């Protein structure tokens, strides 16, 4: 009975928890990555877009 309980409840719970943790990790990583990408774009924009017309001819 205990084995059956373990097989039917605890294992799926553990697997589920692992999947949730992995998913959370991936989502967290994705969010961090997206933030980093946005930050990179912002930096690149700030460093390169200078409408100082004197630099062109």
């Amino acid at each position, binding site marked *: 009975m205990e084995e059956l309980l373990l097989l039917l409840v605890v294992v799926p719970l553990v697997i589920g928890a692992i999947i949730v943790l992995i998913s959370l990790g991936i989502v967290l990583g994705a969010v961090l990555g997206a933030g980093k990408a946005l930050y990179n774009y912002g930096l690149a924009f700030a460093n390169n877009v200078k409408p100082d*017309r004197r630099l062109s001819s």
Partner: protein
Amino acid sequence: MSKVLDPAIRSYFFGKGYLDLHAVIADTWARNLASAQKELTAMRSLWPRSWTGKGLALVRGAAAASILVFGTAFFLVASILHVALLLTFFLLVYLGFTLVYLTEWAYLTWKGFFPVCPDCHSKNPLAEYFCPKCGNVHRRLIPSSYGILYRTCKCGQKLPATFFLQRGNLAAACPDCKRMLGGLIEVRKVFVPIFGGPAVGKSSFLLAVLRELTEHWAPARGFAVKFPDSGVDSEIHRAWQHLAKGLPPAKTVTNLPRAINVQVDRSGQEGRLLYLYDPAGEAFGETEGLQLHKYQNYLSGLVFLIDPFSIQEVREIYADRLPRVESALKPSQLPAEDAFARILIGMEEYFGLGKGERIKKPVAVVINKIDAFGLEQRIGEPAVQARLRSSPTPADPAAVRNHVVREQLVRWGLTDLVHQLETRCPQVGYFACTSLGRMPDGTVQPLEGRGVLEPLLWILEASDSMFKAERRKQAA
């Protein structure tokens, strides 16, 4: 039209904006790659450790993938917005300067404003302008990608890019011969060449016209007359001083006529620049010389001077007295018919006047030297006044003068010339004058012209609204 690069700073939306966009994309991509690389390195170092390390490695790995995926997506979306913004401003600026340029072009064309070089006589839609700070040449100072209303020279000086903002006040040069163009470049111009064979007295006539205009006509009407070209003013005053001492003007020596720019303006009113020029008689003697007189392309009217003593009939009438005064009178050797024929040939050959086509500009036919042998009494103002007095009904003095002079030309046997003039020129006016007022005989009595300004005024009134209005005002 070849692209002219001026020493000015181009609008951001026409150059640097796109370079900046490219730099942003390259920089973003490099930063994203570096960030992803960093995350992957961290992931590799965390993975072999504990389960927590493995979990963190998972997060860092996901972050690396996310940076690449979202980074690409971000810069694609942002770049599209960036390009859209740049193109929107590009189009707005383009539309702005095109509209201003077209408005300026239409206004200048309507008003007849264009720079003409007094040296090489080239007519150009635009002069070359100089930056007042660094002296750099701006070859196309118009509303353009360098600026709609103003542009910034590379030295930092702001320059007006359009006529409407007094661009004409900048120093400018002829794009063809590079001669500096003196004042009032962008004003309405009136071109009046003074034609005639050698020794008909063109230089004297021109000087007398300028004197009459400067000393009598302009002050009486509140106008100021200036000679904007450097040195010309003193040259003319020196010639006037010579005339005041009884000395005739020196013979014109150059074959290429140098126009005399005369600035006529009145405060609060748009001025005019008169281009009066005296083609040297020798150049005119050869038909080929006419090709130099490019002004004929855009003349407002022409003065055709006739020396009565170049007419065979007149020579015969005064045959007994002529030899005694020949050196003072200097009769022209080119018959008037030939002189007029040469004008026509030149215009047909070089300026697109069709064979038999009419010259659609007013032509003032002026008999000069009427101070000699009492001609003034016969065809000058006294004759006109006498005819007016004897007229049973009030007559128009201009019409009477026209009739008197024309009649005399016919009497002198110039019927063919009169016929040809009236056939080829729909607007002919006949005048008589004396450019010097008397024969130069070595005495110190001043030489002062009479009747010289009327032919010019008649042309100006026929071709220019300001002079026409002035005449109407006087008549009222």
